[in-house]
């Protein structure tokens, strides 16, 4: 049984039936009796003082229940939104955390900033009424680029943040790096822009606040990746309700990619307003609102320098980055360009000295926070573009240059100069595997063939590393996290042998209902159809930290394993009693308890039944079979791999065709290969999207978002890709009981550098992301003209 449905099997997903038959229950599919509908009036300006708001006419419109502004929230003592990760600048000062009201009070700081909340009996009535609100704005000059915001005389986004500088942070040893550069035979230098992205989960964010005046409980239905974190923040910091009177439900969530980690203004206001009007309030974002108000990703301006000896051995890396935070700090914004970024600048290499300086700045744009990879894609992009540029500068093959600098497979645990201790890996093996997959030996012939047809062919590499799990708590706490980053699990046997697993992780596409069930099937012998996974409701599951940072299996799955251990321990006592043996003589394997050296045995189902029907039960044994565990790992996990992109460019049109893609990734042990492969496909697609298509552009003068819909922000579609060749190598992770590393973000981390390196290889010149057809065409034409 377990060979087909246990660990290592590509079990078809248990959750699929409801999604395939239209029975998924996403937020907007939920309606509460008597609910009203909320609409946010949003700022049309990037930066303006609010001189007055007149809601008189709007208040008289048909169906209007209430209209609230920032003043109403403040009058109720509702606090602003918080950032939960403290960063200390190099001068010892804490990062600047300006006020972030859920509805703007006297100033709007980005297009889409909340100005008022209109509640009406119907959505159409709320929309109509919102148009009747008169706001008198005094427009100010905005600043949208991170680099511009640091210039002297730049507009000040917040009065209490001089020079728009949130923090000026550093990591590494500047003196060691200076020495490395002094001794270098060659230095490669690049300016690199990592373009701003809009996450664009296909389900727009939404929320319903539902207040029960009989119990004083608020139930908040929201599109969250971490409902308990939302409850904690809304209770302890925002003051919506005490934790025991606030239940947060995140039902089926249609994708997250980081954007649904954060605690947003809209859900805060819905939860608060439901009590004010004693009626459920529902808000669902339109896609244009998502573009304006979801936390964006990336947006780094970086200058990097790599020092090498005459043989191309890396001696030192110096990185200066300006990270655009947007107008306000989103929930974990500060951690992304600091500890999730600079700590990965060693990449897969033995670079002995690294120094990074990061200036995080405020601008009049939507807040920027974690998006699939969160800091780690930015790090890999810097390192891998630099390495490939260095290879070109030195005239060494990019494969050879990487191999000269890879950390050796026997060097683990390996301490980098940027505070990480890599636990395991085999980087040369990933490179060799990917080279085989792409048929590197045949590349020269393919290139010649392309050239004979007037096309330019290029190949590009990306040997990425990431730190996943976003745990242990002691480590992240020492780096400034305001929360612990463990995970919880509860394994509950029913009397008839079925199991419900309650997990603090949250699935929004990752397939936990299947992967987690496989763990129970493998270890407790329960048929997979008898295992149910429950998540996403603070009223049901133990306090959990949620899903992000490719952590769910490594941390949440390990918590399940801890609970399984407790079930086995308890089961042994029950089995000993049933078989009249001593506990020490009971052996357990896959749901069967045996008396050692005999043929006596009982099954897990019999043990569970006995635990709930404890007739003739020993007095010192508790009834029931229901165990809870919390798991806090000992280290991050370090998935790594090599991706190779092959492109063909038509210099006459600028069209980049991705003709082939090879990915060799080390995720440690794999529970469900089908799901892991799917994660790679999706991650690479987002990375390819970043490199070729996607770009969030704000007009530099007006601060208007120019790419505010799917008409302007180019989403990757089915005909933008070839089928990828994916393999995994499996160096078990020593840091958790499952030996797993996390696979959700890898593709998005690896892909941009691989693709841009391939495009550079084809064109012979470097361009920034996204490599749009126009940009590629101009570059190709310039090269051609220069040659003529």
């Amino acid at each position: 049984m377990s060979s087909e449905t246990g660990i290592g099997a590509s079990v078809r997903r248990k959750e699929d039936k409801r999604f395939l038959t239209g029975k998924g229950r996403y937020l907007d599919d939920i309606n509460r009796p008597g609910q009203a509908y909320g609409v946010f009036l949003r700022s049309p300006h990037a930066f303006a003082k609010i001189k007055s708001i007149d809601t008189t006419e709007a208040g008289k419109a048909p169906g209007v229940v209430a209209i609230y502004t920032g003043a109403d929230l403040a009058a109720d003592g509702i606090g602003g939104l918080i950032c939960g990760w403290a960063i200390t600048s190099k001068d010892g000062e804490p990062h600047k955390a300006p006020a972030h009201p859920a509805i703007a009070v006297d100033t709007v700081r980005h297009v889409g900033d909340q100005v008022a909340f209109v509640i009406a009996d119907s959505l159409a009535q709320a929309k109509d009424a919102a148009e009747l609100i008169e706001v008198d704005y005094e427009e100010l000059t905005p600043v949208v680029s991170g680099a511009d915001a640091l210039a002297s005389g730049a507009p000040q986004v917040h009065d209490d943040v001089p020079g728009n500088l949130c923090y000026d942070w550093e990591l590494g040893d500047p003196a060691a790096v200076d020495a490395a550069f002094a001794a270098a035979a060659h230095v490669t230098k690049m300016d690199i822009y990592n373009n701003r992205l809009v996450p664009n989960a296909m389900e727009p964010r939404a929320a319903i606040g539902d207040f029960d005046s009989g119990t004083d409980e608020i139930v908040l239905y929201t599109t969250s990746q971490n409902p308990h974190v939302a409850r904690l923040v809304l209770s302890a910091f925002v003051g919506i309700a005490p934790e025991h009177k606030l239940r947060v439900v995140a039902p089926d969530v249609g994708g997250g990619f980081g954007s649904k980690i954060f605690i947003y203004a809209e859900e805060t206001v819905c939860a608060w307003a439901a009590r004010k009007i004693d009626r459920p309030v529902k808000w669902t974002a339109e896609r244009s609102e998502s573009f304006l108000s979801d936390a964006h990703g990336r947006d780094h301006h970086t200058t990097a320098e790599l020092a090498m000896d005459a043989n191309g051995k890396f001696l030192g890396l110096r990185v200066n980055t300006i990270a655009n935070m947007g107008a306000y700090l989103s929930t974990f914004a500060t951690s992304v360009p600091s500890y999730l970024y600079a700590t990965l600048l060693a990449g897969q290499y033995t670079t002995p000295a690294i120094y990074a300086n990061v200036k995080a700045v405020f601008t009049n744009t939507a807040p920027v926070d974690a998006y699939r990879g969160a800091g780690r894609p930015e790090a890999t992009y810097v390192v891998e573009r630099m390495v490939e540029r260095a290879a070109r500068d030195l005239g060494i093959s990019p494969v050879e240059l990487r191999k000269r600098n890879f950390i050796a497979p026997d060097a683990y645990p390996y301490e980098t100069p940027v505070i990480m201790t890599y636990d395991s890996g085999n980087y040369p093996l990933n490179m060799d595997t990917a080279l085989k997959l792409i048929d590197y030996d045949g590349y020269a012939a393919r290139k010649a063939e392309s050239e004979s047809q007037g096309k330019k062919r290029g190949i590009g590499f990306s040997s990425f590393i990431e730190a996943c799990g976003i745990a242990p708590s002691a480590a992240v706490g020492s780096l400034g996290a305001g929360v612990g980053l463990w995970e919880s699990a509860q394994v509950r046997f029913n009397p008839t042998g079925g199991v419900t697993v309650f997990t603090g992780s949250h699935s929004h596409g990752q397939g936990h209902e299947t992967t987690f069930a496989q763990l129970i099937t493998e270890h407790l012998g329960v048929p997979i159809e008898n295992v149910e996974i429950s998540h996403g409701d603070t009223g049901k599951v133990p306090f959990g930290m949620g899903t992000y940072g490719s952590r769910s299996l490594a941390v949440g799955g390990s918590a399940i394993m801890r609970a399984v251990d407790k079930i086995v321990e308890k089961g042994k006592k029950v089995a000993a009693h049933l078989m009249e043996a001593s506990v020490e003589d009971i052996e357990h394997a896959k749901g069967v308890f045996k008396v050692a050296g005999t043929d006596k045995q009982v099954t897990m189902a019999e043990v569970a039944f006995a635990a709930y029907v404890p007739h003739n039960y020993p007095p010192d044994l508790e009834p029931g079979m229901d165990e809870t565990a919390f798991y806090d790992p000992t280290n991050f996990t370090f998935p790594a791999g090599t991706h190779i992109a092959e492109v063909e460019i038509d210099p006459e049109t600028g069209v980049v065709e991705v003709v082939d893609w090879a990915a060799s990734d080390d995720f440690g042990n794999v529970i469900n290969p089908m799901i892991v492969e799917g994660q790679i496909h999706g991650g690479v697609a987002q990375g390819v999207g970043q490199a070729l298509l996607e770009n969030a552009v704000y007009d530099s003068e007006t601060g208007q978002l120019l790419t505010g819909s799917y008409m302007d922000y180019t989403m990757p579609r089915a005909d933008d890709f070839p089928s990828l060749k994916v393999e995994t190598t499996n160096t078990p992770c020593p840091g958790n009981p499952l030996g797993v590393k996390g696979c959700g973000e890898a593709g998005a981390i690896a892909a941009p550098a691989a693709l841009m390196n391939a495009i550079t290889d084809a064109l012979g010149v470097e361009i920034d992301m996204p490599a749009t057809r126009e940009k590629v065409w101009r570059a190709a034409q310039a090269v051609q003209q220069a040659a003529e």
Partner: protein
Amino acid sequence: MPNVSMTVNGKAVSAEVEPRTLLVQFLREKLSLTGTHVGCDTSQCGACVVHINGKSVKACTTLALQNEGAEVTTIEGLAQNGELHPMQAAFKEHHGLQCGFCTPGMVMSAIDLVKTHPNPDEKTIREGLEGNICRCTGYQNIVKAVKTAADNMGG
């Protein structure tokens, strides 16, 4: 308010609607058929694709009133007697869905694609699904699923 009547998943339905009501709103709000999703506001994403008189249509591009007398099939109407439609079954078999939000529209589009191209190659499938955005799968397993379903549907 005007009245509209149509057949949805084989059942006659009739309701009063505001004239501005889109078909997708009619399906979701009046009929509680919430399997048809709304993923954008510019008719780009395809999460709301249904079949109208046998052809795939984005249900956000047509008013409910325009569909007087029409035969509409939604994702809820595909499975028969508890048996998944071959396209649904192929999506499950090939892991052609992750978060599931784009899936109903993707499945409805894919069925129409296979009707038009009974034996589609990879390029035809990729180009044929260009009107549906999926953010999770990278499309690779969707392509596999559609190919398998086409084979099983007798292409």
